[in-house]
Protein backbone atom coordinates (compact mmCIF):
# COMPACT_ATOMS: atom_id res chain seq x y z
CA UNK A 1 0.00 0.00 0.00
CA UNK A 2 1.40 3.36 -1.02
CA UNK A 3 1.60 6.30 1.36
CA UNK A 4 -0.59 9.27 0.46
CA UNK A 5 2.43 11.56 0.32
CA UNK A 6 4.18 9.27 -2.19
CA UNK A 7 1.05 9.19 -4.35
CA UNK A 8 0.83 12.99 -4.25
CA UNK A 9 4.48 13.29 -5.28
CA UNK A 10 3.99 10.81 -8.11
CA UNK A 11 0.94 12.75 -9.30
CA UNK A 12 2.92 15.98 -9.29
CA UNK A 13 5.55 14.23 -11.40
CA UNK A 14 2.96 13.40 -14.03
CA UNK A 15 1.77 9.95 -12.93
CA UNK A 16 -2.02 10.28 -13.19
CA UNK A 17 -2.52 6.66 -12.12
CA UNK A 18 -1.25 7.69 -8.69
CA UNK A 19 -4.04 10.23 -8.40
CA UNK A 20 -6.56 7.60 -9.43
CA UNK A 21 -5.32 5.49 -6.51
CA UNK A 22 -5.91 8.43 -4.17
CA UNK A 23 -9.44 8.81 -5.53
CA UNK A 24 -10.16 5.11 -5.01
CA UNK A 25 -8.89 5.33 -1.44
CA UNK A 26 -11.00 8.35 -0.48
CA UNK A 27 -14.05 8.21 -2.79
CA UNK A 28 -16.33 6.38 -0.34
CA UNK A 29 -15.27 8.18 2.87
CA UNK A 30 -15.72 11.50 1.04
CA UNK A 31 -19.09 10.43 -0.38
CA UNK A 32 -20.24 9.36 3.08
CA UNK A 33 -19.27 12.71 4.56
CA UNK A 34 -20.81 14.84 1.79
CA UNK A 35 -23.83 12.55 1.52
CA UNK A 36 -24.62 12.97 5.22
CA UNK A 37 -24.21 16.73 4.91
CA UNK A 38 -26.40 17.35 1.83
CA UNK A 39 -28.68 14.25 2.12
CA UNK A 40 -29.04 13.82 -1.65
CA UNK A 41 -27.25 11.04 -3.47
CA UNK A 42 -26.84 12.66 -6.91
CA UNK A 43 -25.82 16.00 -5.46
CA UNK A 44 -23.38 14.27 -3.10
CA UNK A 45 -21.81 12.43 -6.05
CA UNK A 46 -21.43 15.67 -7.95
CA UNK A 47 -19.84 17.44 -4.98
CA UNK A 48 -17.56 14.48 -4.26
CA UNK A 49 -16.31 14.63 -7.83
CA UNK A 50 -15.74 18.36 -7.46
CA UNK A 51 -13.66 17.79 -4.31
CA UNK A 52 -11.26 15.58 -6.27
CA UNK A 53 -11.10 17.97 -9.21
CA UNK A 54 -10.38 20.89 -6.90
CA UNK A 55 -7.77 18.94 -4.98
CA UNK A 56 -6.07 17.91 -8.23
CA UNK A 57 -5.91 21.48 -9.44
CA UNK A 58 -4.54 22.64 -6.07
CA UNK A 59 -2.23 19.70 -5.46
CA UNK A 60 0.92 21.78 -5.89
CA UNK A 61 -0.17 23.83 -2.85
CA UNK A 62 -0.52 20.76 -0.60
CA UNK A 63 2.06 20.76 2.18
CA UNK A 64 3.27 17.25 3.09
CA UNK A 65 3.67 18.25 6.75
CA UNK A 66 -0.14 17.95 6.99
CA UNK A 67 -2.08 14.72 6.52
CA UNK A 68 -3.54 14.36 3.03
CA UNK A 69 -6.96 13.24 4.28
CA UNK A 70 -7.39 16.31 6.51
CA UNK A 71 -6.41 18.54 3.58
CA UNK A 72 -9.00 16.78 1.42
CA UNK A 73 -11.76 17.07 4.05
CA UNK A 74 -10.97 20.76 4.45
CA UNK A 75 -11.61 21.24 0.72
CA UNK A 76 -14.82 19.20 1.02
CA UNK A 77 -16.03 21.18 4.02
CA UNK A 78 -15.47 24.49 2.22
CA UNK A 79 -17.22 23.14 -0.84
CA UNK A 80 -20.30 22.14 1.17
CA UNK A 81 -20.42 25.59 2.79
CA UNK A 82 -20.04 27.26 -0.63
CA UNK A 83 -22.83 25.12 -2.03
CA UNK A 84 -25.17 26.15 0.76
CA UNK A 85 -24.24 29.79 0.30
CA UNK A 86 -25.00 29.63 -3.42
CA UNK A 87 -28.31 27.94 -2.73
CA UNK A 88 -28.99 30.48 0.01
CA UNK A 89 -29.71 27.77 2.52
CA UNK A 90 -29.57 29.27 6.01
CA UNK A 91 -27.27 28.18 8.82
CA UNK A 92 -24.22 28.22 6.59
CA UNK A 93 -21.42 29.12 8.88
CA UNK A 94 -20.62 25.78 10.41
CA UNK A 95 -18.11 27.17 12.84
CA UNK A 96 -20.09 30.10 14.08
CA UNK A 97 -23.55 28.61 13.92
CA UNK A 98 -25.42 28.92 17.17
CA UNK A 99 -26.41 25.63 18.64
CA UNK A 100 -29.59 26.50 20.41
CA UNK A 101 -29.93 24.75 23.67
CA UNK A 102 -26.97 22.53 22.96
CA UNK A 103 -25.32 23.23 26.28
CA UNK A 104 -28.58 22.39 27.97
CA UNK A 105 -28.80 19.15 26.04
CA UNK A 106 -25.23 18.32 26.83
CA UNK A 107 -25.66 18.47 30.58
CA UNK A 108 -29.15 17.08 30.66
CA UNK A 109 -29.17 13.41 31.50
CA UNK A 110 -32.39 11.56 31.08
CA UNK A 111 -33.53 9.77 34.23
CA UNK A 112 -36.59 8.16 32.66
CA UNK A 113 -37.00 4.49 33.34
CA UNK A 114 -36.73 2.27 31.45
CA UNK A 115 -34.32 3.67 28.86
CA UNK A 116 -35.97 4.20 25.45
CA UNK A 117 -32.79 3.40 23.55
CA UNK A 118 -32.78 -0.15 24.85
CA UNK A 119 -36.22 -0.72 23.34
CA UNK A 120 -34.78 -0.57 19.84
CA UNK A 121 -33.20 -3.49 18.05
CA UNK A 122 -29.76 -2.51 16.73
CA UNK A 123 -30.90 -2.40 13.07
CA UNK A 124 -33.90 -0.28 14.00
CA UNK A 125 -31.75 1.99 16.12
CA UNK A 126 -29.36 2.59 13.22
CA UNK A 127 -32.29 3.48 10.98
CA UNK A 128 -33.62 5.93 13.56
CA UNK A 129 -30.19 7.50 14.11
CA UNK A 130 -29.77 7.95 10.35
CA UNK A 131 -33.05 9.87 10.18
CA UNK A 132 -32.33 11.86 13.33
CA UNK A 133 -28.99 13.00 11.88
CA UNK A 134 -30.94 15.29 9.55
CA UNK A 135 -32.23 17.19 12.56
CA UNK A 136 -28.83 17.74 14.11
CA UNK A 137 -27.35 21.23 13.48
CA UNK A 138 -24.84 21.19 10.63
CA UNK A 139 -21.94 22.26 12.83
CA UNK A 140 -22.48 19.27 15.13
CA UNK A 141 -23.41 16.82 12.37
CA UNK A 142 -20.23 17.54 10.44
CA UNK A 143 -18.00 16.71 13.42
CA UNK A 144 -20.12 13.70 14.35
CA UNK A 145 -19.89 12.26 10.82
CA UNK A 146 -16.11 12.73 10.71
CA UNK A 147 -15.72 11.04 14.08
CA UNK A 148 -18.16 8.15 13.81
CA UNK A 149 -18.60 7.51 10.09
CA UNK A 150 -15.23 8.58 8.68
CA UNK A 151 -13.49 7.38 11.86
CA UNK A 152 -11.18 10.38 12.10
CA UNK A 153 -9.40 11.09 15.36
CA UNK A 154 -10.34 14.17 17.39
CA UNK A 155 -6.91 15.58 16.54
CA UNK A 156 -7.52 15.18 12.81
CA UNK A 157 -10.90 16.88 13.09
CA UNK A 158 -9.33 19.69 15.10
CA UNK A 159 -6.77 20.15 12.31
CA UNK A 160 -9.45 20.29 9.62
CA UNK A 161 -11.60 22.81 11.45
CA UNK A 162 -8.73 24.68 13.05
CA UNK A 163 -10.34 24.24 16.47
CA UNK A 164 -9.01 23.14 19.86
CA UNK A 165 -9.27 19.37 20.38
CA UNK A 166 -11.34 19.91 23.53
CA UNK A 167 -13.95 21.90 21.60
CA UNK A 168 -14.19 19.16 18.99
CA UNK A 169 -14.73 16.49 21.65
CA UNK A 170 -17.33 18.61 23.39
CA UNK A 171 -19.29 19.15 20.18
CA UNK A 172 -19.21 15.47 19.20
CA UNK A 173 -20.52 14.57 22.68
CA UNK A 174 -23.23 17.21 22.27
CA UNK A 175 -24.27 15.65 18.96
CA UNK A 176 -24.61 12.24 20.59
CA UNK A 177 -26.58 13.63 23.51
CA UNK A 178 -28.85 15.38 21.06
CA UNK A 179 -29.40 12.09 19.20
CA UNK A 180 -30.28 10.39 22.48
CA UNK A 181 -32.74 13.14 23.30
CA UNK A 182 -34.35 13.00 19.84
CA UNK A 183 -34.69 9.24 20.18
CA UNK A 184 -37.05 9.89 23.04
CA UNK A 185 -39.41 11.67 20.66
CA UNK A 186 -41.96 9.76 18.59
CA UNK A 187 -40.66 8.67 15.16
Amino acid sequence: MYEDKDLVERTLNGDTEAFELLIRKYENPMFNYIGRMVRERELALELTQEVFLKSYAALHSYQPKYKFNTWLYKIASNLVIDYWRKKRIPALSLDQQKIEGSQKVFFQISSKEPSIIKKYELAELKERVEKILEKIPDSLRELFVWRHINELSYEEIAEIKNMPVGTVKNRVFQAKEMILQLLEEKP
Partner: protein
Amino acid sequence: MKCLSVEQVYLYLEKQLSASEKISIENHVASCSKCQKLLEEREYLLLAVDSLPSWQVPSNFAQQVMHSISPVKATLWGWLSALVGGFLTFVVTCMIYILATGQNVSTLLINLLQTIWGQIKSSSLIIIKFFKLISVILTTISQLLESLSKGLLQILTVIKPEVQILIIAIFILASFFIIYEARRKFLLGEKQ
Protein backbone atom coordinates in the same frame (compact mmCIF):
# COMPACT_ATOMS: atom_id res chain seq x y z
CA MET B 1 -16.24 9.42 43.59
CA LYS B 2 -19.07 11.64 42.31
CA CYS B 3 -21.47 10.39 39.64
CA LEU B 4 -20.09 10.44 36.11
CA SER B 5 -20.45 13.36 33.73
CA VAL B 6 -21.49 12.67 30.14
CA GLU B 7 -18.03 13.70 29.02
CA GLN B 8 -16.41 11.14 31.32
CA VAL B 9 -18.74 8.44 30.01
CA TYR B 10 -17.81 9.10 26.39
CA LEU B 11 -14.12 9.40 27.14
CA TYR B 12 -14.30 6.09 28.99
CA LEU B 13 -16.19 4.35 26.17
CA GLU B 14 -13.77 5.69 23.56
CA LYS B 15 -10.80 4.52 25.64
CA GLN B 16 -9.44 8.04 25.97
CA LEU B 17 -8.79 7.94 29.72
CA SER B 18 -5.71 6.99 31.70
CA ALA B 19 -5.55 3.60 33.42
CA SER B 20 -6.16 5.11 36.87
CA GLU B 21 -9.18 7.13 35.67
CA LYS B 22 -10.55 4.01 34.00
CA ILE B 23 -10.29 1.94 37.20
CA SER B 24 -11.83 4.71 39.25
CA ILE B 25 -14.84 4.89 36.90
CA GLU B 26 -15.27 1.11 36.85
CA ASN B 27 -15.26 1.01 40.66
CA HIS B 28 -17.91 3.72 40.83
CA VAL B 29 -20.13 2.18 38.14
CA ALA B 30 -20.08 -1.17 39.97
CA SER B 31 -21.88 0.46 42.90
CA CYS B 32 -24.03 3.12 41.14
CA SER B 33 -27.05 1.98 39.13
CA LYS B 34 -27.68 5.46 37.72
CA CYS B 35 -24.19 5.69 36.21
CA GLN B 36 -24.41 2.09 35.06
CA LYS B 37 -27.54 2.96 33.09
CA LEU B 38 -25.87 6.09 31.72
CA LEU B 39 -22.93 4.03 30.53
CA GLU B 40 -25.01 1.22 29.02
CA GLU B 41 -27.23 3.59 27.05
CA ARG B 42 -24.30 5.38 25.50
CA GLU B 43 -22.44 2.17 24.84
CA TYR B 44 -25.45 0.92 22.89
CA LEU B 45 -25.68 4.23 21.02
CA LEU B 46 -22.00 4.03 20.07
CA LEU B 47 -22.53 0.49 18.82
CA ALA B 48 -25.18 1.83 16.45
CA VAL B 49 -23.42 5.00 15.29
CA ASP B 50 -20.14 3.23 14.67
CA SER B 51 -21.80 0.78 12.29
CA LEU B 52 -24.12 3.01 10.27
CA PRO B 53 -24.52 1.84 6.66
CA SER B 54 -21.86 3.08 4.28
CA TRP B 55 -22.77 5.01 1.13
CA GLN B 56 -21.01 3.60 -1.94
CA VAL B 57 -20.01 5.49 -5.07
CA PRO B 58 -20.58 3.77 -8.46
CA SER B 59 -17.74 1.41 -9.42
CA ASN B 60 -16.61 3.67 -12.29
CA PHE B 61 -16.53 6.83 -10.17
CA ALA B 62 -12.73 7.19 -10.14
CA GLN B 63 -12.59 6.73 -13.92
CA GLN B 64 -15.25 9.40 -14.39
CA VAL B 65 -13.25 11.83 -12.28
CA MET B 66 -10.07 11.04 -14.22
CA HIS B 67 -11.97 11.76 -17.46
CA SER B 68 -12.80 15.24 -16.21
CA ILE B 69 -9.26 16.02 -15.24
CA SER B 70 -7.52 18.45 -17.54
CA PRO B 71 -3.79 19.02 -17.77
CA VAL B 72 -2.44 21.30 -15.08
CA LYS B 73 0.55 23.56 -15.16
CA ALA B 74 3.87 21.77 -15.47
CA THR B 75 6.13 21.78 -12.45
CA LEU B 76 9.54 23.45 -12.40
CA TRP B 77 11.05 19.98 -12.72
CA GLY B 78 8.95 19.43 -15.85
CA TRP B 79 10.22 22.64 -17.43
CA LEU B 80 13.83 21.79 -16.58
CA SER B 81 13.46 18.28 -18.02
CA ALA B 82 12.02 19.72 -21.22
CA LEU B 83 14.91 22.20 -21.50
CA VAL B 84 17.58 19.57 -20.86
CA GLY B 85 15.83 17.18 -23.25
CA GLY B 86 15.71 19.84 -25.96
CA PHE B 87 19.36 20.78 -25.52
CA LEU B 88 20.52 17.16 -25.62
CA THR B 89 18.46 16.53 -28.73
CA PHE B 90 20.11 19.55 -30.37
CA VAL B 91 23.58 18.25 -29.47
CA VAL B 92 22.76 14.75 -30.74
CA THR B 93 21.39 16.14 -34.02
CA CYS B 94 24.59 18.13 -34.51
CA MET B 95 26.71 15.04 -33.88
CA ILE B 96 24.73 13.03 -36.41
CA TYR B 97 25.11 15.86 -38.93
CA ILE B 98 28.87 15.93 -38.39
CA LEU B 99 29.20 12.16 -38.66
CA ALA B 100 27.02 11.99 -41.77
CA THR B 101 28.51 14.90 -43.73
CA GLY B 102 31.97 15.24 -42.28
CA GLN B 103 31.43 19.02 -42.32
CA ASN B 104 32.17 21.52 -39.60
CA VAL B 105 28.91 22.70 -38.08
CA SER B 106 30.50 25.60 -36.25
CA THR B 107 31.01 27.45 -39.54
CA LEU B 108 27.30 27.09 -40.26
CA LEU B 109 26.37 28.46 -36.84
CA ILE B 110 28.69 31.43 -37.15
CA ASN B 111 27.35 32.26 -40.64
CA LEU B 112 23.80 32.08 -39.34
CA LEU B 113 24.65 34.31 -36.43
CA GLN B 114 26.35 36.84 -38.70
CA THR B 115 23.29 37.01 -40.97
CA ILE B 116 20.99 37.61 -38.02
CA TRP B 117 23.42 40.10 -36.59
CA GLY B 118 23.50 42.06 -39.86
CA GLN B 119 19.71 42.27 -39.95
CA ILE B 120 19.27 43.58 -36.47
CA LYS B 121 22.31 45.81 -36.31
CA SER B 122 20.24 48.90 -36.91
CA SER B 123 17.68 48.04 -34.24
CA SER B 124 17.50 49.56 -30.78
CA LEU B 125 20.32 49.35 -28.29
CA ILE B 126 18.46 46.99 -26.03
CA ILE B 127 17.88 44.47 -28.78
CA ILE B 128 21.51 44.72 -29.82
CA LYS B 129 22.64 44.02 -26.29
CA PHE B 130 20.29 41.09 -26.09
CA PHE B 131 21.58 39.56 -29.30
CA LYS B 132 25.15 40.26 -28.28
CA LEU B 133 24.51 38.04 -25.34
CA ILE B 134 23.02 35.39 -27.61
CA SER B 135 26.01 35.66 -29.94
CA VAL B 136 28.35 35.03 -27.05
CA ILE B 137 26.33 31.97 -26.05
CA LEU B 138 26.17 30.66 -29.63
CA THR B 139 29.88 31.30 -30.18
CA THR B 140 30.62 29.34 -27.04
CA ILE B 141 28.35 26.53 -28.21
CA SER B 142 29.91 26.56 -31.67
CA GLN B 143 33.38 26.43 -30.18
CA LEU B 144 32.29 23.58 -28.02
CA LEU B 145 30.82 21.74 -30.99
CA GLU B 146 33.93 22.47 -33.05
CA SER B 147 36.13 20.88 -30.43
CA LEU B 148 33.68 18.03 -30.15
CA SER B 149 33.59 17.49 -33.90
CA LYS B 150 37.38 17.57 -34.13
CA GLY B 151 37.56 15.00 -31.40
CA LEU B 152 34.92 12.88 -33.08
CA LEU B 153 36.66 13.05 -36.44
CA GLN B 154 39.84 11.88 -34.80
CA ILE B 155 37.95 9.03 -33.14
CA LEU B 156 36.29 8.17 -36.46
CA THR B 157 39.65 7.51 -38.03
CA VAL B 158 40.23 4.70 -35.56
CA ILE B 159 36.64 3.36 -35.15
CA LYS B 160 35.20 0.82 -37.56
CA PRO B 161 32.04 1.84 -39.57
CA GLU B 162 29.91 -0.78 -37.73
CA VAL B 163 30.81 0.74 -34.40
CA GLN B 164 30.05 4.22 -35.75
CA ILE B 165 26.52 3.08 -36.71
CA LEU B 166 26.05 1.55 -33.27
CA ILE B 167 27.05 4.81 -31.55
CA ILE B 168 24.62 6.80 -33.72
CA ALA B 169 21.81 4.35 -32.92
CA ILE B 170 22.48 4.65 -29.18
CA PHE B 171 22.40 8.44 -29.40
CA ILE B 172 19.11 8.39 -31.31
CA LEU B 173 17.53 6.03 -28.77
CA ALA B 174 18.75 8.11 -25.84
CA SER B 175 17.39 11.22 -27.50
CA PHE B 176 13.94 9.67 -27.99
CA PHE B 177 13.89 8.50 -24.37
CA ILE B 178 14.74 11.96 -23.04
CA ILE B 179 12.07 13.61 -25.21
CA TYR B 180 9.47 11.06 -24.06
CA GLU B 181 10.29 11.58 -20.38
CA ALA B 182 10.28 15.35 -20.72
CA ARG B 183 6.92 15.23 -22.49
CA ARG B 184 5.45 12.98 -19.77
CA LYS B 185 6.48 15.41 -17.05
CA PHE B 186 5.30 18.36 -19.06
CA LEU B 187 1.84 17.03 -19.81
CA LEU B 188 0.59 16.25 -16.31
CA GLY B 189 -2.97 15.06 -16.50
CA GLU B 190 -2.85 13.54 -19.96
CA LYS B 191 -4.23 10.01 -20.14
CA GLN B 192 -1.57 7.40 -20.55
